[in-house]
């Protein structure tokens, strides 16, 4: 934590290597968030890169009193929420979404990411995919980052009571999924867990 603030100070002084260290440290947290939000590896990678890029460009706006990880996750989750909303608009219009620059997207995703929780991952993404983006973000921050209601509220720029009701509504919708036939899939996924 203290180390993060030192690295940030070095980045502000123009040291890109210090930022590379921060990327190394938080790449998994940020990528997991964008993957859980967007549901596919290609988009997740592009969004995670974008989140780091924005953090780099706005590094002076970072408040050293806060945790750097929370700040990063805040940028990433808000970017993903916007992106999902735009994706809906894009589907309505004729335009194809812009693919990420070819030289910037790397080849295949790490195979390890998929061998461990293959089937379960599919079920999880199907469940999350049913939720509106801001509900999805609350669920992801709650379950993968173990954030309290207040922390989620700060990360997403809303109130604690809004998060309380989002998580409740999200659980109701997911429970509805279970009723409408995903129960068996879920049970299989649980056995695998």
């Amino acid at each position, binding site marked *: 934590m203290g180390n993060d603030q030192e690295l940030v100070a070095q980045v502000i002084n123009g040291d890109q290597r210090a930022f590379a260290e921060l990327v190394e440290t938080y790449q998994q947290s940020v990528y997991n968030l964008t*993957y859980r939000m967007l549901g596919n590896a290609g988009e997740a990678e592009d969004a995670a890169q974008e989140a780091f890029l924005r953090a*780099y460009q706005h590094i002076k706006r970072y408040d050293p009193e806060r945790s750097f990880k929370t700040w990063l996750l805040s940028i990433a989750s808000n970017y993903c929420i916007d992106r999902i909303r735009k994706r809906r608009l894009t589907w309505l219009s004729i335009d194809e979404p812009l693919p990420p620059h070819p030289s910037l997207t790397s080849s295949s995703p790490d195979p390890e990411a998929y061998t461990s*929780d293959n089937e*379960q991952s599919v079920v999880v993404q199907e469940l999350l995919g049913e939720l509106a983006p801001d509900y999805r973000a609350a669920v992801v921050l709650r*379950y993968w980052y173990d954030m309290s209601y207040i922390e989620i509220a700060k990360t997403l720029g809303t109130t604690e009571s809004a998060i309380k009701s989002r998580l409740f509504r999200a659980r109701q919708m997911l429970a509805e999924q279970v009723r409408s036939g995903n129960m068996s899939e879920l049970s299989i996924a649980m056995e695998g867990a």
Partner: protein
Amino acid sequence: MAHNPYELMISLSLDGMLEDEEEFELQTHLADCETCADMFDRMALVDTVLVNAGEVAPPVNFAVSVMLRIKAEETGRRWYPWLIGILVVASVLAAVSIAAPILFLSIGVERIIAQWPALASLVDNSLHLFETLLMRAWFITNAVTDWYSYLLSDPAALAVVVTALVFASIWIGFLEVSKANRLAMSGQAA
């Protein structure tokens, strides 16, 4: 019976947000109410699945890609030192070319050219052709594109155009001077 407050309590319970008495109240209701007990089972099942879903790892070269993207983003908007160098050199050349008529006159290059009539007529013709082409190019460019705002946004294109203008103006200046000088010399001869 209103189940909704209990459904909210189930959600809060899963997040460990209930006080002991509230938790007791919920459990008491669940023991009596099949609807809420069913809701609890389903919410708890989803909860277990989500709790057990691990983190997904990024691609192996992810960190490198991020740093490459940052570098690309930074250099894309930068005025390179060499680009500024070209602009400075081009501006100096432009200034020199404006002063070129005086320079040519003082050196006397144009007098040598004027002594060969064939060369003089070639100079005249190419000057005429050049002026016509330049005028046409000017009007076409103006009519077809909003090049002005584009140039201001792209340093590389600006450098190319300024350099081209410099060479054009040197050439025109050279031709103009030799033409003017020849006229002056033929006047003297007559």
